[in-house]
C-alpha cells in the first residue's frame, strides 16, 4: 500500500469530519453555556444552505460569496428571535420542555422552508477558484475538501481564541458555573445568553453555506444533520468544543472506512459506538458529568 492510495480516503475522512465539526461546534457551544439541547440548530443549518442556493442562482459568480456573509447573518437573526421569543421563557423549566420547544420549532421551520423553497433538491457548485482536483503526494484530492478542512480549522481556532483569550470568552465559561454570581458582578446575563445562542445559530448558518456545494440541499436535511451533530457532540462530550472535534474525527473516520469496507454496517456501527460511549461515560469522552 503506497502513500497515494491512502491520501484520497484520508482527506475524504478529514473533510467529512470537518463539516460535522462545524455543525456540532455550534450545538455544543450552546449546550455548554445554556445547558440546552437545541434541535432547531438543524433548521438554522438548512436555512443557511437554502439561502446559499438562492443567492447562487441569482448570481453564479458572486452569489456564494455573498451567502458566506448573508446565511450566517440570517441564521443568527433567527437565533435571536427564537431565544428572545421562546427559549428565554423556558430556562427555569426542565430539559424535556426545552427539548420539545426546540423540536416544535424544528417542525415549524421545516414547513416554512417548504413554502419558501419548495420540495425539490437544490444544488450549487463551488466557486471557480476552488473547483477541481489538486495533486497531493501523487493522489488526486478534491480542492473543495481542503476548503472545508480549512474552514473547520478557522472555526475551531476562532472558538478556542474566543473562549480562552477574550473577556467574552470567560463570561461564557463562567455563566455555566454560576449565572447568579456572574450577574451580580455586573454582567448582563440575559444578553449573554442571547449572544451565545445567536453565535451558535451563526455557526449553523455558516456550516450550511460551506456544505451546500458538496451535498444535496433539500428538505429533511435539518433533521438528518441534527442526528449526526448529536452523535458527534455526545461522543465527544456535550459542552466541550475539543470534544466536538474529537467526536467529529472519530465519526468522520468510521464513516469513511465503513463506507468502503462494510457499507451496510457503517451507520449501525456509528450508533453502537454512541451507545458504547454513553454506557461507559454517559457525559462523553471529554465532557464533564452533570451535577
Amino acid at each position, binding site marked *: 500500500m503506497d502513500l497515494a492510495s491512502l491520501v484520497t480516503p484520508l482527506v475524504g475522512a478529514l473533510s467529512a469530519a470537518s463539516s460535522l465539526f462545524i455543525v456540532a461546534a455550534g450545538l455544543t457551544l450552546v449546550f455548554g453555556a445554556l445547558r440546552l*439541547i437545541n434541535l432547531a440548530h438543524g433548521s438554522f443549518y438548512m436555512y443557511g444552505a437554502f439561502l446559499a442556493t438562492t443567492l447562487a442562482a441569482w448570481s453564479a459568480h458572486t452569489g456564494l460569496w455573498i451567502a458566506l456573509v448573508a446565511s450566517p447573518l440570517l441564521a443568527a437573526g433567527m437565533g435571536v428571535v427564537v431565544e428572545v421569543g*421562546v427559549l428565554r*421563557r*423556558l430556562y427555569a*423549566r*426542565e*430539559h*424535556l*420542555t426545552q*427539548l*420539545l*420547544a426546540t*423540536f*416544535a*420549532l*424544528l*417542525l*415549524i421551520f*421545516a*414547513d*416554512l422552508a*417548504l*413554502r419558501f423553497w419548495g420540495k425539490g433538491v437544490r444544488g450549487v457548485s463551488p466557486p471557480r477558484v476552488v473547483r477541481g482536483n489538486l495533486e497531493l503526494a501523487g493522489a488526486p484530492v478534491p480542492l473543495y475538501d481542503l476548503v472545508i478542512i480549512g474552514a473547520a480549522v478557522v472555526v475551531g481556532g476562532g472558538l478556542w481564541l474566543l473562549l480562552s483569550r477574550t473577556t467574552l470568552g470567560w463570561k461564557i465559561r463562567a455563566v455555566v458555573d454560576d449565572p447568579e454570581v456572574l450577574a451580580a458582578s455586573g454582567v448582563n446575563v440575559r444578553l449573554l445568553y442571547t449572544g451565545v445562542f445567536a453565535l451558535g445559530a451563526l455557526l449553523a448558518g455558516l456550516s450550511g453555506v460551506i456544505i451546500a456545494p458538496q451535498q444535496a440541499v433539500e428538505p429533511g436535511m435539518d*433533521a438528518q444533520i441534527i*442526528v449526526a451533530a*448529536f*452523535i458527534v457532540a*455526545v461522543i465527544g462530550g456535550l459542552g466541550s468544543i475539543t470534544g466536538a472535534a474529537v467526536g467529529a474525527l472519530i465519526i468522520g473516520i468510521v464513516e469513511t472506512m465503513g463506507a468502503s469496507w462494510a457499507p*451496510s*454496517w457503517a*451507520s*449501525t456501527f456509528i*450508533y*453502537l459506538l*454512541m*451507545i458504547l460511549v*454513553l*454506557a461507559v461515560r*454517559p*457525559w462523553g469522552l471529554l465532557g464533564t458529568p*452533570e451535577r
Partner: protein
Amino acid sequence: MTMYGPSGVDVGDPSEGSVDPAETPARPPGRTELVPRLLGPIALVVVMAALGFLLSDNVLLTLQEVLALAVFATATNLLLGQAGLVSFGQAVFYGLGAYTVALGWLHWQLPFWATFVMAPLLGALVAVPIGLVALRARRLYFALSTLAFSELAYQLAESRYDFTKGANGVFGAFVPTALTYPRTGYLFVLAVTVASLLLLWKVNHSPFGLVLRAIRENRGRMQALGVNVYLHQLLAFVISGAFCALAGAMFVVYSQSSYPELLDWTTSGGPVFMAVIGGMGTFLGPAVGAFIYQFGHDELVRYVSDWQLVLGVVLLVIVMFWPDGLLGGLGRLARLLRKRRGDR
C-alpha cells in the same frame, strides 16, 4: 392536592409537594364514591364499543390506529409521567412488536395469535439489556441514550435486507381475515386496549407505581431509605417496553405491514407529544393526546399541507403556556370551580 405533572419530571427535583397526589382525594372514598368512580370508565368502554357499530369503515380504521397509539402513549407515560424518565426510544419496542408479527409470518409461518402474544414478551426481553445500559445515564443523557437505541434499531431494520426486507418493509396476509374487516378489527383492538389500560392503571396505582413517583420526586431520599432505584426504574422500563411492543402488534392489525420508520426516533417522539398534549400528569391524558394527535393529523392533511407547522405551533403553545396538557388543565379548572362552590 398537588399535580404530579410536568413540574416534577426531572428525577431528584424535590420541589412541588407531596409524593402521591393521585391517590389522596379530598374526601376518603366511601361506598358512595366507588360506584361513580367505576361508572365513568365503564360508560366510556360501552360507548366506544357501540361506536364500532355506528361509525363508518373509514373512521373505524383510523380509530384502530388511534387505539394502538393510545396504548403506546400510555405505556410511554409510565416512564415519562410516573418515573420521570424521558425516553426517546420507545419506538424500538413499538417497531419490535410490529416486526414480531410480520417476520414471524414471513420466516416461520407463525400464526398471528401466537406472534401477537409473543410481541409483548419479546418487548420485555429486549427492554432488559437496553434498560440496563440506558439507565446508567440520567436525565438528558438517558433521553439521548434511548434515542441512540431507536436509531440503531432503525438502521438495523433498514440495512439487514435479507431478514427484514429493508426499507420496503414487510407486507402480507399475516393478519387473520376476520380482523381485516374494519369493525371486527376495531372491536379486537378496543378489547386489547381496555385490557392494557386496566393493567397499566393497576401498575400506576400499585405500591410499585408509588415508589416510582417517589424516586422521581426525590431520588436521594429513596436511595437513603434502601430502595434499589436502578432496579425499580429497570422494571418500569421493562413493563413499558412490553406494552409498547403490544401496541406495535396492535398497529399491525391496522397497517397490515411493518416498516423501518416504526423504529425511528421521530416515531419515538410521537407518544411523548401525545402525553404532553393530553397531560402526562394524568392517567388518561396520553390516550386523549393520541386521539387529538392522530385525528388532528388525519383531518388536517386533508385540508392543509402544513401539518407539521400546525403541530409545531400547538406543541409550542402547550409547552410554553399549558405545561400540564389538556386533561391537567381541565383538572385544574374543575378543582377551581369546586373550590369556588365550596367557598360559598
